[in-house]
């Protein structure tokens, strides 16, 4: 089992990873082998078995609608302290592509 180049590129785009051609080929092969090994799981009859998303039985865990104490939040300086690019109290980012388009351009370019 191997994952097609097209699928690898699609997944890399969803995950925002700029993969090299070499990586695309490698991951296609490795993902295929790992998922192939998982055949024992994927081919199992699980009719009527509920999924487990969590191994604990908690419910209704909430916090009261009360402001952080003592300091309300981080100061602007603290908030921005780790920012790779900061301008006028904001995090600066390069040009955002057209609103509503989370896919962007081809990523496998390097």
């Amino acid at each position: 089992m191997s994952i097609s180049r097209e699928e690898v590129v699609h997944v890399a785009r969803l995950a925002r990873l700029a993969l090299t051609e070499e990586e695309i080929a490698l991951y296609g092969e490795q993902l295929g082998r790992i998922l192939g090994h998982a055949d024992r799981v994927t081919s199992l009859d699980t009719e009527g078995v509920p999924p487990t998303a969590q191994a604990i039985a908690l419910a209704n865990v909430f916090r009261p609608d009360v402001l952080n104490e003592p300091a309300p939040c981080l100061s602007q300086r603290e908030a921005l302290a780790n920012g790779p690019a900061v301008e006028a109290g904001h995090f600066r980012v390069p040009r955002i592509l057209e609103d509503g388009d989370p896919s962007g351009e081809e990523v496998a370019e390097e």
Partner: protein
Amino acid sequence: MSDLVTTIGLEIHCELATSTKMFCGCAVGFGGEPNTRVCQVCLGHPGTLPVPNEQAVAYAIKIAVALGCGIAPSSIFHRKNYFYPDMPKNYQISQYDIPLGLKGVLEVTTDAGTRAVGITRVHLEEDTGKSLHMGSGGRIHDATYSLEDFNRAGTPLVEIVTEPDMTSPEEGRAFAQELRSILEYLEVSDVRLEEGSMRFDANISVAPPGERGAKVEVKNLNSLKSLHRALAYEEVRQREVLGGGGAIDQSTRHWDERSGVTRPLRTKEHAFDYRYFPEPDLVPIKPSPEWLEAITSGIPELPPARRRRFIADYGLTPYDANVLVASRAAADYFEDAAAAAAGIEPKQVANWLANDLLGRLSERGEDLETTRVTPQALGALVGLVAGGSISGAQGKVVLDEMMVSGRPPAEIVEEKGLKQVSGRSELKAVVAGVLAANSDVVDRIRGGDAKPQGFLVGQIMKATKGQANPAVVQELLKEMLQG
């Protein structure tokens, strides 16, 4: 192409008026310096965990119940995965296949009648931050870079999705208005504070009756006005395309508020794969019967019921009832003022409130919460006018003064000497004097020319500094001119 049918469904996002954010204790608010209402959680720092705000959950349940939805015995959060720089974790904590509320209904009335609009679902999620697009014009497509402010990130949002049950832009607007009223009544959202606390996405399709049209999604509708404008624009556009023999593609369009048009968004076919999966950092919400009861018992009489009661109990016209009930503040004010004006026709109280007070408040940038005129004072004022103590015109002068000083109307009337003179004997002397001073006019009237009578009334009012009761003056004039 009048045989085409328009079909509209809405998706509404509404910010909840909690003190703190959905998953952390940062303040919810508007404006202010960027990145000053943030912490490691709402900035999505590594290792941080969300803990849901109980009040936000209660508000969402309240909304769902008010819209007639069933409440899920166990609902969970999902992660909705997509990259966007204003979304700190690059996934949004939202709800997916098991939302808090399912299957409700809301009736809306327009000139075309009343329609029951199905509510598909009500769910809870978190808001994103805001991007400020820098470069020429501040628009996304010609920006050279953007600045991110995460103050809004994590604000609790309720998403309400309707069935495609609306058939005109007017119904779309009416639904949104009615929903806004309900949210105001529930005191769960500051729906007036700024544009953007309620945001709309709309699905609209136009097709011959019985056929299913291609669904066009219109995004970026940040006010009732844009919602209506965009729907009206899109309805006409689609009708024109179809009328010209063209076809509508299923697509997503962006409303451009400035130019008043919708534009197609460039989206790729496979772009939206949100990879929803259950949020492992959170546990299910299983509202107990006691909690649900406590939340439900906090729901006040809602606009539809209140409107019916205003018509039945106060004798208001449907129009007046609509105007007053649309805002909880106005309706509450009306009821208090009507109680203070006991024995007076409530219709008159409604008129003074809707026509005189609200108009003046909006001119002055005030509202019912900030005004110095109490409902009791307005009721007293209407009582003075209705009882004939002062004229309607005088009442308006008194109202102006009440808005400035907040003093009771009786005190203002007293101080300004505005008391209306209604005594026949007192007025008879004045009328006699005016008639004597204008004998030429009197002769013309007696000669059959009725026109100058208004002049005489004016002279009498002038002589009484406007205090004469106009009805009594008319009566006396009639008697004395005949005599």
